[in-house]
């Protein structure tokens, strides 16, 4: 596994920790947090994992994945992964310059996450890919997901297109981005639940003393860990240079596993937090609303699981084991 720079992670967590307060996250709903976006841009963190030759900050997919997980953990209200993991990647593949500012990725047209606040669109069609200023495309109806992250219907008009990733490949990349965000947010839901179990007292003792809640917490931790493992498999396998079909498989596994974990972890986290946990004033909701939204975006767990299942069935039972043991690849030491 490729080690992620400890200093990089420290910087990321310190920026998110300072700026992603519950107040700031709440206030940003419907748009983005401009202060946070500036801080990330100034430190070069918004384009980690994108080659310097196309205007990114350089660094590996592992670095970008670590930042994405942290963004999910802190509920960062910015289109960070749209810009780096998805948009930046499309640009790098196509040799296009990644423009400054927040990016939204138009996947063939239609609902485009973060479009209302994007400075530029990375347009992906099956005829080619391109980069245009946000004003250059027709933006229709707008809305927001459960967590107030905005989207808009975007129509792709005439644009200068060059050869690049297909819509399906870019959509898979979007699913990877959501899976990474979810891996971080799932961890946060577990962490908040442990804190609350220790601090809330009933019957004269912290509720974490009750065995049933200890078991909830262990189950949540397990689902969070296995979901993160599926994401880490995906990142390792993609970084090792897998072909497009295998990239789709490992991303499918990551999105399916994280999406499944949301159903379990959100339910138990809210059960454990009692009524206060689903009020507006408790910060758990910034995490759980994002998780409910992200599991549906760029393909639900059912869609991705079916995609993975179809490719495994086509390959046949005997092919499964060699596939499983190649995730992640053995490492030359």
């Amino acid at each position, binding site marked *: 596994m490729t080690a992620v720079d400890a200093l990089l992670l420290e910087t990321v967590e310190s920026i998110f920790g300072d700026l992603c307060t519950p107040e700031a996250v709440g206030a940003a709903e419907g748009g983005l947090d401009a202060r946070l976006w500036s801080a990330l841009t100034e430190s070069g963190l918004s384009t980690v994992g994108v080659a310097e030759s196309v205007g990114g900050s350089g660094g590996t997919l592992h670095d970008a994945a670590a930042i994405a997980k942290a963004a999910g953990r802190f509920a960062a209200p910015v289109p960070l992964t749209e810009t780096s993991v998805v948009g930046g990647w499309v640009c790098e593949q196509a040799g296009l310059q990644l423009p400054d500012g927040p990016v939204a990725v138009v996947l063939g047209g239609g609902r485009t996450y973060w479009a209302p606040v994007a400075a530029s669109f990375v347009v992906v069609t099956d005829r080619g890919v391109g980069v245009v200023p946000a004003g250059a495309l027709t933006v229709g109806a707008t809305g927001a997901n459960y967590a107030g992250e905005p989207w808009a219907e975007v129509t792709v008009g005439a644009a200068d297109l060059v050869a690049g990733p297909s819509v399906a490949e870019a959509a898979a990349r979007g699913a990877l981005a959501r899976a990474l965000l979810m891996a971080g947010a799932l*961890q946060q839901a577990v962490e908040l639940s442990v804190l609350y*179990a220790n601090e809330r007292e009933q019957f004269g003792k912290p509720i974490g*003393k009750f065995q049933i809640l200890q078991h909830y917490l262990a189950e949540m931790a397990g689902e969070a860990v296995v979901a993160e493992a599926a994401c880490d498999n995906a990142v390792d396998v993609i970084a090792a240079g897998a072909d497009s079909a295998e990239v789709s498989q490992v991303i499918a596994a990551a999105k*399916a*596993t994280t999406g499944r974990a949301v159903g379990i972890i959100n339910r138990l986290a809210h059960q454990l937090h009692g009524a206060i946990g689903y009020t507006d004033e408790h910060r758990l909701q910034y995490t759980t609303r994002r998780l409910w939204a992200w599991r549906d975006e760029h393909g639900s767990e059912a869609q991705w699981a079916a995609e993975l299942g179809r490719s495994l069935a086509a390959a046949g039972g005997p092919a499964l084991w060699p596939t499983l043991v190649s995730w992640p690849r*053995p490492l030359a030491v």
Partner: protein
Amino acid sequence: MASRLSFPDAALPSSTEEIRLRIRAFLEAEIAAGTYVPSCDTWLSGHDADFSRKLGANGFLGLTWPKQYGGHERSALDRFVVVEELLAHGAPIAAHWITDRQSGPGILKHGNDALKEELIPQMAAGEIYFSIGMSEPDSGSDLASIRSTATKVDGGWLLNGTKVWTSQAHNNHYFIVLVRTQPIAESGGKHNGMSQFVMDLRSSGVEVRPIRLLSGHHHFNEVVMTDVFVPDHMMLGVEGNGWNQVVGELAFERSGPERYLSTYPLLAALIDAVGPEPSAEAAAEIGLLVARLAGLRRLCVSVAISLDAGRLPVTEAALVKDLGTRLEGEIPEVARRLVAPGRIERFDQLVADSVLSAPGFTLRGGTNEILRGIVARELGVR
């Protein structure tokens, strides 16, 4: 918090590839020759001494043990790879399973030279087999409450008591038995005063009684010991240190690939049974099982790498076992929903074996309730 649990490196070294290809070729040849039919849960129920001897003769047992005792001095990760291939190919490995996994390592770590010289070479050859003597009728999850005793006599010890859930005691040669050598009242704590012995299961005073399972299978036994004489040199490790010796091995016992691969042969057969163009529902169910399995395997490899590096990831192992044993129990549930019985005989057999063995998955080696308690403590619940 999840980050208190640590699953660092998860990629096996490429040096393990050679033995993976070798064991896989061996197993494919055995299957093709009709030596065995891949089955589920074979690490507990597939007792086949010929097959175990063949594995020994081909150098696949005692992989990490010293060459002077017939071992191969290879890495623990080479052994991990061999074991996961054996499980994935549904091979009959119950005869030597406990021997290779924990009895041999336990004797090498705690045994005296005479014991090692007498037993380890035969263990590495796949010729003698061991069982576990821990649980008792009134001591399951609360293992420290065991009542079996060993009393010092001239030249050895007299063992008395009853052990239960002793898999394959009727087929195996020895078990490593945990008994009290000092009463709790004198030992200064419940966890003190226990010792381990290597006991010949054919000694006089030993009665092995079968316990049949609801499936009709017989691998469990009750072992009743009445004044069984065990010579001094068969004590394993230090008198009174039995508890620590047992607990120190739990991470090894709990984290292996047998904790999520018991029903793998059924999963592979399920993929073939639904055919190359499954319904969306079948594809989604299979896809989700495999997605989770792939994540779990990563965690399992990570624990193996940690163990190999000398760490003792007890909590991580408990978490992997909780997740893995539940997943291996879900595979037959999905399989029977997706493929109606009466179409493929071998598939039906795999489903039946899995459904009827599944209750054991989340019990053996520490119930999932005990495991979750361990995980919760590590998460920081006070």
